[in-house]
């Protein structure tokens, strides 16, 4: 009788220790799955709009005629300094680096300049627009104030 009781207890003990680590493992995996599924950390990117102080009437306050403008079109980018076209960049491989190098040159030329104006073709892919804005800002190293020029036709 005494032997039977001990044998029963031994059986219970062998079952539970196997189950507990498995349950722990599932509990460990579950939060990571939930986190990756729903709680991706979203950040934001500021896009400025032209203000009254940027109007031609107040242009004398800043570098008049020295505005940097990027036109994003389906075929590529056009970079203007004032009224003059500075360069064209097509969307071929490595365009990000070429644009960055050109903007770095302009930044060295105009170190106090903080704004860059972008004109965007409505049919261009949104991801490309974000990429160009990202390069313009370059984590605050180049032109942190990207001003979106909205053309209403």
């Amino acid at each position, binding site marked *: 009788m005494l032997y039977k009781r001990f044998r029963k207890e031994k059986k219970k003990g062998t079952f539970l220790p196997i189950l507990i680590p498995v349950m722990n493992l599932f*509990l460990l995996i579950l939060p990571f799955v939930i986190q990756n599924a729903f709680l991706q*950390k979203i950040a*934001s990117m500021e896009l400025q709009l032209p203000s009254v102080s940027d109007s031609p009437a107040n242009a004398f306050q800043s570098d008049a005629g020295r505005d940097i403008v990027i036109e994003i079109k389906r075929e590529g980018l056009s970079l203007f300094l004032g009224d003059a076209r500075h360069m064209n960049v097509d969307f071929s491989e490595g365009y990000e680096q070429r644009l960055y190098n050109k903007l770095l040159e302009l930044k060295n030329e105009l170190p106090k300049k903080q704004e860059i104006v972008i004109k*965007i073709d409505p049919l261009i892919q949104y991801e490309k627009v974000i990429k160009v804005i*990202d390069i313009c800002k*370059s984590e605050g190293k180049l032109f942190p104030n990207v001003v979106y020029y909205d053309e209403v036709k």
Partner: protein
Amino acid sequence: MARFFKKSSSSMELNLTSLMDMFTIILFFFLSAYSFEGVLMKLVEGITLPEARSVIPVAEKFYIAVGKDRIEISGRTYAVTGKDDPYILRELKDIKQKGKNYLVIQADKDLPFYVARNYIRLAVQAGFSKPYLAVLPK
């Protein structure tokens, strides 16, 4: 009889080890989900955000999500066709009237820009002076 009671009381023992394990896991989960700056924003299902390096933390929870087939503003869904634009504008104005001047635009990376532009315009019309575009940090 006494033996019987003794047996049942021993089966009521609480396994502290697994309980502690569970609490440790929950603790790590909350610690990793906790953001020290900004707020955590819900990523709307079906929207793939573009990635960027030059980012700032999200300051407030108000968003307008522009997907391929629907628009969502803080949990409410609208049609993307443009027929719901007056309602969207009203909803954005309501948010603005709460004294908020921060709206994040979550737009799918594959959309043509004019779709996102439409809602940037609506946000500006509602009184938001700066649109903030939602991105995933690289």
